[in-house]
């Protein structure tokens, strides 16, 4: 039994060390956001700095259009989430359940989209959006974000549907459901964990994206959070206090979502295979 005690002690030790490594950089941001304005550069290692102040947070909401950026980001992200979930849940279903010409090629081409440097798609897209008059509109960014997460989320959905037995639809069909109802009423609710993952990934792509937004949303009224954050450092000196506070405000909703959904993460992330 002694070997077991040693093993468990070592396990706890490893877990604690890695948890400290995982959390420490995030605490750094907390520290920066709490530092009083006159002591932003500090060689102290304290987590809660001396004379901690919330002034950066107050400034964010009173002197900067932070609330505006947040509402913009929320709007874009929610539309992208709804679009992403609708597209991935349906396409993934077809790839899991039916055999049709070009199925394997379709799945492989989804994987292939990940191999091209995404930033190089920006230039042609930019020219296309100018021609369509979609610069400085959300439609452009929403379409691009919806497509970005799609290959991965379709694969995730397909992998999860593969674990649901086909006999369920057959039973539903015998009971008189048509194909769409069998999918919509029977299978979709069972795929909840994968739907949650798909929603989370779609939301994350939109919420935290900078490069595409910087090209398309040039009007500062339309800025999303990453663009606003970047503006704190594009001036002569970085406004570290504001930057820290804003980073935290951006990261906290995502972290909260991750934590709330973490039990689905393990069960919902089933990457399927190409075959079948």
């Amino acid at each position, binding site marked *: 039994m002694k070997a077991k005690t040693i093993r468990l002690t070592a396990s706890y030790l490893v877990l604690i060390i890695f948890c400290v490594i995982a959390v420490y950089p*995030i605490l750094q941001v907390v520290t920066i956001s709490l530092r009083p304005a006159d002591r932003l550069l500090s060689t102290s290692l304290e987590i809660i700095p001396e004379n901690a102040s919330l002034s950066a947070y107050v400034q964010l909401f009173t002197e900067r259009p932070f609330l505006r950026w947040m509402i913009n980001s929320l709007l874009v992200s929610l539309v992208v989430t709804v679009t992403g979930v609708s597209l991935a849940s349906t396409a993934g279903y077809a790839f899991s359940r039916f055999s049709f010409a070009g199925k394997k090629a379709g799945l492989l081409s989804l994987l292939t989209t990940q191999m091209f440097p995404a930033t190089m798609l920006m230039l042609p897209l930019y020219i296309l959006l100018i021609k369509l008059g979609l610069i400085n509109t959300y439609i452009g960014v929403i379409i691009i974000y919806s497509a*970005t997460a799609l290959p991965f989320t379709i694969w995730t959905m397909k992998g999860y549907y593969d674990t649901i037995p086909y006999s369920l639809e057959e039973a539903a069909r015998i009971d008189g459901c048509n194909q769409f109802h069998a999918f919509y009423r029977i299978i979709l609710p069972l795929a909840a964990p994968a739907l949650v993952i798909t929603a989370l990934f779609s939301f994350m792509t939109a919420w935290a994206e900078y490069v595409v937004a910087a090209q398309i949303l040039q009007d500062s009224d339309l800025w999303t959070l990453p663009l606003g954050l970047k503006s704190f450092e594009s001036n002569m000196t970085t406004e570290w206090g504001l930057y820290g506070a804003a980073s935290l405000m951006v990261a906290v909703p995502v972290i909260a979502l*991750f934590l709330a959904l973490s039990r689905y993460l393990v069960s919902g992330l089933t990457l399927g295979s190409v075959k079948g």
Partner: protein
Amino acid sequence: MNATTSARTYHRLFIFFLIGPAFLILFAVVLYPFLYNIVVSFSNMSLRHIRDWSIVGPLQYVKVFTEESQPDFYVIFFKTIVWTVVNVLFHVVIGVFLALILNQKEIRGRWLFRTLLILPWAVPQYIVALTWRGMFNFEYGSINLLITQYLGLSAVEWLKSPTEAFIACIITNVWLGFPFMMIIALGALQSIPHELYEAAEIDGASWWHKLRHITLPMIRPVMIPAITLGTVWTFNNLNIVWLVSNAGEPSDNTHILVSFVYKAAFNLYRFGYAAALSMVIFVILLVFSLLFMRRTRATEAAA
């Protein structure tokens, strides 16, 4: 006869209705720019020829492989391979290792540990990059403060020398990437039937034997697609290298291929050259993925 034809038509329409919208949007956002990029890669498009560009043949591809830049293609390609291999190796080893520990039934507070360990994944990448850049600061960064105050070592010029700056980027990316592999491995571990271990214990198998002959082979089919994707994502991850090294500092010594493409396109406006280099990256990753998946499938069939 007529009924079956209409049922088949309905079936085809249903599949089209399921897949059509997703692929329509992917054609618009990925395929069209990709084809456009191929055209640009054979042209002389640059700041000087932004509107009056013309097709010049494979000139840009020749430049990619022969141009004497500082650093040149081969040096950056080598760095990209080091970057990808080191990152993915650490992601997978740390991820699987932590998953194995977390999967022990006797550990209390597994939920809490798992929750804290996925935090690096939840923080948006540009915030991660800029935070770590601050932590690598020579004078005020907490990394140097920690190693001078607690380990008694001398401070390291993380961001001013090529090797250290590259290591700083790798540390940052290892930090943010291990939770993904951990979660995938955890899911795979939980799907292993418990009877396998019970049978092995009856046969008197050691801990190492169970790991070697049950656990690793059982999580392998799940890890292979994750590793393929992880490799492609890491190879193409612009954010970390670009933001931690502040666009390749010191003096363009901290580049991987994608950050070099980004610089060529959006800082130097050499669009034709950047497009050609992108195509080279694409072909490298395509060949890698096909070989890797074929090889792993072949060994699977043999096993």
